[in-house]
């Protein structure tokens, strides 16, 4: 057993428990995006930052990947944590403003402005879909490609993957696609999953290879009638 203090509260956890699990066990809310129970922690979104250490050795770590250590002092909502978290949300907002999840996060954390160059990405590269596909579906059909600003999620060579089981798991776990999937008016609902795999049918023209278990496209079917 490991004894550590979270926000001043002492607790015992099993070896190997992450700070996120420990904090949530005690009931402290820590927002997350890329973390998902049942998938390996990836630490991509940095939203779950917490502060650890004392004095000059204070630092911010991602709680979803940081294992509990004996005698650690963890603060989940210090001023520095809140400032960093707001900044991350602001950055997410700059890349994917149309995501309902991110809009909700922004309003929950009182982020009222967005000072960066606005982009309209569909994907925040959190990697959930990739890990879902690999760890739960054992398919390894999609993955990260390229790097830096060209990093994207998709299939090799951008063609429909032979490994894909058409299970829809990737779309199901995507944390940012919600608004696109259900839209504000349910009758106009489209799943948008394909858009999150950057093969968008809507708003952009090209629509060759759909990575969608709904093929043929439901949205197109709906608009046809």
């Amino acid at each position, binding site marked *: 057993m490991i004894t550590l203090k979270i926000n001043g509260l002492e607790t015992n956890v099993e070896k190997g428990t992450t700070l996120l699990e420990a904090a949530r066990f005690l009931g402290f809310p820590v927002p997350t995006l890329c973390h998902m129970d049942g998938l390996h922690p990836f630490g991509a979104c940095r939203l779950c930052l917490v502060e650890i250490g004392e004095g000059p050795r204070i630092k911010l770590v991602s709680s979803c990947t940081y294992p509990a250590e004996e005698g650690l002092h963890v603060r989940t909502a210090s001023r520095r944590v809140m400032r960093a978290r707001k900044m991350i949300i602001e950055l997410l907002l700059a890349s994917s403003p149309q995501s309902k999840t991110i809009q909700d996060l922004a309003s929950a954390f009182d982020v009222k402005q967005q000072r960066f160059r606005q982009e309209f990405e569909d994907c925040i590269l959190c990697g959930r879909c990739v890990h879902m596909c690999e760890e739960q579906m054992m398919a*390894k*059909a999609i993955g990260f490609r390229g790097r830096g600003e060209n990093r994207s999620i998709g*299939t*090799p*060579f951008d063609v429909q*993957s032979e490994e894909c089981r058409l299970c829809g798991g990737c779309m199901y776990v995507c944390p940012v696609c919600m608004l696109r999937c259900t839209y504000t008016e349910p009758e106009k609902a489209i799943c948008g999953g394909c858009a999150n795999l950057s093969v968008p049918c809507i708003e952009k023209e090209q629509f060759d290879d759909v990575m969608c278990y709904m093929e043929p496209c439901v949205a197109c079917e709906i608009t046809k009638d």
Partner: protein
Amino acid sequence: MKESRLSSATEEIVQKHENELGGVIAMLEEIQLQHSYLPESALKTVASETGRSLVEIYGVATFYKYFSLKPRGEHLVSVCLGTACHVRQGALIAKEFEDQLGIRAGETTPDKKFSLETVNCLGACARGPIVLVDGHYFSNVKKTQVSQILKKAREGLDAIDVTTDQRVFPVKLRCPHCNHSLLDPNYLIDNHPAVRLTISFASKHGWLRLSSLYGSNNIKSEYEIPMNTIADFFCPHCHAELVGSSACPVCNAPMVPMTIYGGGLIQICSRRGCKSHTMDLVNSICINCDNRHTCKLMKPEGGVWFCEEYI
């Protein structure tokens, strides 16, 4: 047929690096050297042979700028746009290459001669702007030199002008077994007597003549030797097989040893197309020579070739 040959060559590469740390990158590097790019089918073979997913291999192949998924031209021009080269107008040089080749960076000319790319730092910042063409560095490149660089690349940067190049000199070789001269005064290559050997490969048996100029790669042979073939070499006089104790440092094929008049050993690679050769000098270099205290000749650093002829 072509497809299956490609995949067996790929399989060979995969097996070579299978148990290495970071083996996948080594495999991809070697495949790219062979084809100048990474063909889709080769990536699939790597994935199935290593038991990894295609998306993983594809991820690696797209992560590194060094790898290309599109066929590249015969010559690869890389213009450095790293910080140091950028402040020295590397971008202007890149633009000039784009204009002269009529393509953008990242593209290949329609005649498949040139591919142009920009890179971030080639590790020679102090001498920037740097341009790398087919493995040859050009430093302090000015806009006006661009056309000249392209011209040189077209002529082949590896080609050596045997008549003027200082690095080329004639060597006299003999068989390490019977000590007979291997030079054939009746057959000239590069205007010098050629080195005559007997070779055999794939049930063919015939003569091979090499240029006796050290640094020249010109050869003539009775039968056309396909690229990549490893041949067995024999002395035309005593018919002993010429095999060295070492393997080629580049491609691992056996080396072929020949002795130099005046001492020393030249080894050439037995693989067609591999230009690797080594020279171990014993006497020819003055500082190693037993006679250096009594010898009256000038003793330049590179040695006096065939000094016994002058004495």
